[in-house]
């Protein structure tokens, strides 16, 4: 059996097959990491403000998508926190965002600080605003803000059953006629 030596073309096909970039030693890894960090710091200095904003908006989108995909039972106000991140990434002041979506700064502050639920109109305006902002950044599903809002409501409701269920269960009954049918 003869073995032919690998050509560059073979290596390129291997690139699609896989790569193994494990390091041979700790020293090797640390040395490469230090060089990479140095080069990255140089490149990061040249990032424009716009590029940073685009990265932050992509991050926000990915965080929202991840949140929607799994139930999360915690005390955090996810909708309000995502909204705060969105506004503070794009605007120098929150009042400017309130002006752009034609609501009062007080109403915005109440939603951001979770003192008041957003009205349908607020979320619809936010949906339109996000469509415009994300248009040239990445795909942003228009229903995302609604999904985050209702996902949080569902998670909150399901995780607080001990609080609301005992009282409400007394109010809910099946009439005899219905019970006989089942």
């Amino acid at each position, binding site marked *: 059996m003869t073995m032919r030596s690998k050509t*560059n073309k073979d*290596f*390129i*096909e*291997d*690139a*699609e*097959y*896989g*790569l*193994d*970039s*494990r*390091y041979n030693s700790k020293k090797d890894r640390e040395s*490469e990491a230090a*060089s*990479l960090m140095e*080069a*990255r710091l140089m*490149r*990061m200095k040249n*990032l424009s403000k716009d*590029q*940073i904003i*685009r*990265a*932050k908006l*992509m*991050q926000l989108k*990915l*965080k929202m998508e*991840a949140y929607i995909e799994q139930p999360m039972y915690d005390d955090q106000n996810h909708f309000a926190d995502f909204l705060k991140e969105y506004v503070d990434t794009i605007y120098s002041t929150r009042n400017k965002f309130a002006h752009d979506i034609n609501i009062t700064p007080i109403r915005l502050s109440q939603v951001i600080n979770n003192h008041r639920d957003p009205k349908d109109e607020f979320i619809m305006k936010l949906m339109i605003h996000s469509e415009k902002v994300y248009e040239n*950044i*990445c*795909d942003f599903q228009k229903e995302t803000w609604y999904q985050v809002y209702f996902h949080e409501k569902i998670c909150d409701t399901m995780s607080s059953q001990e609080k609301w269920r005992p009282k409400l269960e007394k109010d809910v009954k099946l009439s005899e006629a219905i019970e006989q049918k089942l």
Partner: protein
Amino acid sequence: MHIRLLTVSKDNKGKEKQYDGIAGNLITYAAKIAVKEYAEYACVSLRPKSKIAQHYIDKYNMKLTGMTLSIEVPEILDLINHYDHEK
């Protein structure tokens, strides 16, 4: 974020491969995690054999530092958009 090992099945290798772009999608998966965690500081690195480094530079727009290739902002955002649009 450093990719230590990246591999696809034999069925998806070479000219007769069943699916195209598996390596690209795997790198994009790592890129999404990096951006989700680190925003403008996101970085995905790997260390290919020197003969195939140019392939990764050309195909994924990675940058070479020593023996390590990396992709950062803004190219990492383009990579994510490219593979998301191919879905």
